[in-house]
């Protein structure tokens, strides 16, 4: 088991390194970071451009730039300079990460619980009205653009605030700009209030695929021989369901959930844009707009690391849950 863990962890290191090279090439292809200076009218002195090029390291050849960047990141934790010289990429990134992590983690937890409950229920009551309803709802959420639903919910919140009771829903930002009472608890409840609507949006985005998966996986297990045996032994239906069927059915869900993390982060970008959060999404989109190469690179590196860590975690969890993998 331990050897399996080590082997699996070692494999992900070259993947991560290759991923940095790939993102580096992509970011270089995405444009010239100094475009904004070069296109300025009246023209900026050539000397200024050369100085900026030197500050951002753009005067070296590509490969040397990459080497310089990757060694700085790995050895010193330094992500390089942003276009705005006053910005420290690492502090910006860590505060943005904290904001987005709140949203994503909460959404994953809620949507997994919701998906398992409804998925199992509709598998047990196959072809019932509830089954058809949840299946259709799953299809609907699968087909609904995240941003459209987010705008709808946001406007619904605004409507409620205006017509029913003032200040129920927070529709803008991840926290209040000004809090009268700055104690720990009031800050936490402020965070929680701002989380409500975006979390609903992002949970439903993940929920759709996972509930369908749970249902399919549960149906397969429920029709298997060992569950029939457990039933014919005279075990209580509840025991068969939870102890025998559910445990097996949920194993593949761990992998699916972990693999969907990248897509969910994409959904978070859109959700954050609608609710005007200052998280990872906002940071990346601003960086893309400004062709802020080092910010993009830092962002992509951090996201790729998170996704790879999740995949690693899923593989390990799979090994723990499913003995066939462990001993293979």
């Amino acid at each position, binding site marked *: 088991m331990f050897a399996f863990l080590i082997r699996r962890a070692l494999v992900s290191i*070259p*993947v991560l390194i*290759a*991923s940095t090279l*790939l*993102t580096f090439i*992509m*970011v270089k*292809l*995405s*444009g010239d970071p100094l475009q904004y200076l070069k296109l300025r009218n009246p023209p900026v002195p050539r000397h200024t451009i050369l100085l900026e090029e030197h500050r951002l390291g753009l005067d070296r050849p590509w490969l040397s730039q990459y080497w310089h960047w990757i060694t700085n990141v790995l050895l010193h934790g330094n992500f390089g300079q942003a276009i705005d010289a006053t910005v420290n990429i690492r502090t910006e990134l860590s505060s943005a990460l904290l904001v987005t992590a709140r949203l994503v983690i909460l959404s994953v937890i809620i949507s997994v619980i919701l998906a398992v409950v409804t998925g199992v229920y509709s598998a047990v009551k196959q072809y019932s009205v509830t089954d058809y309803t949840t299946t259709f709802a799953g*299809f*609907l959420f*699968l*087909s*609904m*653009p*995240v*941003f*459209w639903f987010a*705008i*709808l919910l946001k*406007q619904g919140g*605004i*409507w409620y605030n205006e017509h029913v009771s003032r200040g129920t829903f927070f529709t803008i930002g991840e926290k209040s700009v000004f809090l009268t009472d700055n104690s720990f608890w009031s800050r936490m409840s402020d965070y929680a209030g701002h989380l409500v609507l975006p979390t609903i949006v992002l949970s439903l985005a993940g929920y759709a695929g996972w509930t369908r998966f749970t249902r399919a996986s549960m*149906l397969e297990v429920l*029709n298997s021989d060992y569950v029939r045996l457990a039933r014919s032994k005279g075990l209580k239906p509840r025991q068969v369901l939870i102890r025998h069927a559910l445990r097996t059915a949920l194993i593949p869900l761990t992998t699916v959930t972990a*693999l969907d993390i*990248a*897509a969910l*982060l*994409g959904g978070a*970008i*859109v959700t954050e*844009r*609608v609710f005007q959060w200052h998280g990872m999404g906002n940071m*990346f*989109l601003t960086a*893309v*707009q400004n*062709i802020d190469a080092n910010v*993009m690179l830092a*962002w*992509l590196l951090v*996201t*790729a690391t998170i*996704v*790879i860590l999740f*995949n690693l975690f899923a593989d390990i969890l799979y090994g723990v849950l499913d003995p066939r993998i462990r001993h293979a």
Partner: protein
Amino acid sequence: MPDVNINAPIAAQQAGSTEPPEPRVPRVEREFTVVEKSQWQQAGRRFVRHRIAMVSSVVFIVLLLFAFVGPYFWQFPYNKFSNNLSDLNAGPSLRHPFGTDNLGYDGLAVVMRGTQQSLKIALSIALLAVVVGSIWGVVSGYFLGFVDSVLMRFADLVLTIPALALAAALAHNTTGSWWVIALVLGGLSTPYVARVVRGTVLSLREREFIEASRALGASNTRIMFRHLIPNALAVIIVNATLLVAAGILSETALSYLGFGVRAPDTSLGLLISVAQGAVDTRPWLFYFPGIFIILIALTVNFIGDGLRDALDPRQTRQRR
């Protein structure tokens, strides 16, 4: 089910000529006669009986006509605004069924154009990803070893980064024309197809018919493209439909963020992005494009579901 007599064609032939010809098929005495049906005919029958999938197919065809033929029959073009002051911010009416926006563009014409662009992009994404991804997957799964490692690690790489983020970075500096968006998003969806096809090929390549064709001296190319891909076609087709649905969602999201299709052209995502402040005041500008995205994605998802049931009956426990 009324079964057709297998000997009926022969009987018809005999009736046509005075001289009874030699029966080519030896006459088999059977209590129940059955008509021979190919695998694809069977799948087609199963699909036709899948009620939701059939309804969805019809709706999808109507949507295609709406997007590609509709503009020729509608009086207002998508890129000309009205000079009539009463046509500004007008609600749905007989003249403008989907209302107008603040510049006097006709809502129906704009939604038609948006649907057309979004569908064009989504279909191209699926086509590109399926063609390239299938070749990628079959090469990887057939040769295994070093080739497989390199190709699949590369697929893993692309999948570690949120596709939306990569697409935004890549599409930002382009002109934003529809085929660039399709190229970027299609390229990023290719590894998914490659993975799925590889999985199928891995099990197919061990089967006897592949061994037999190898024994007969078939080349690698022939085995891959004449034997492996046709046998993986069911999986490929189902994934293609699911890619269309995913494609339309990612295209609209990209356009919503401002990195996809740009003005003066339009797409459903761009329309929603423009209308997001007008949900309360001019709801027609917000709801119609959204409903069309949902309609397209929903029908395509249902078609994909029906195709999966039709092409892979082992997955459904119900006999159809």
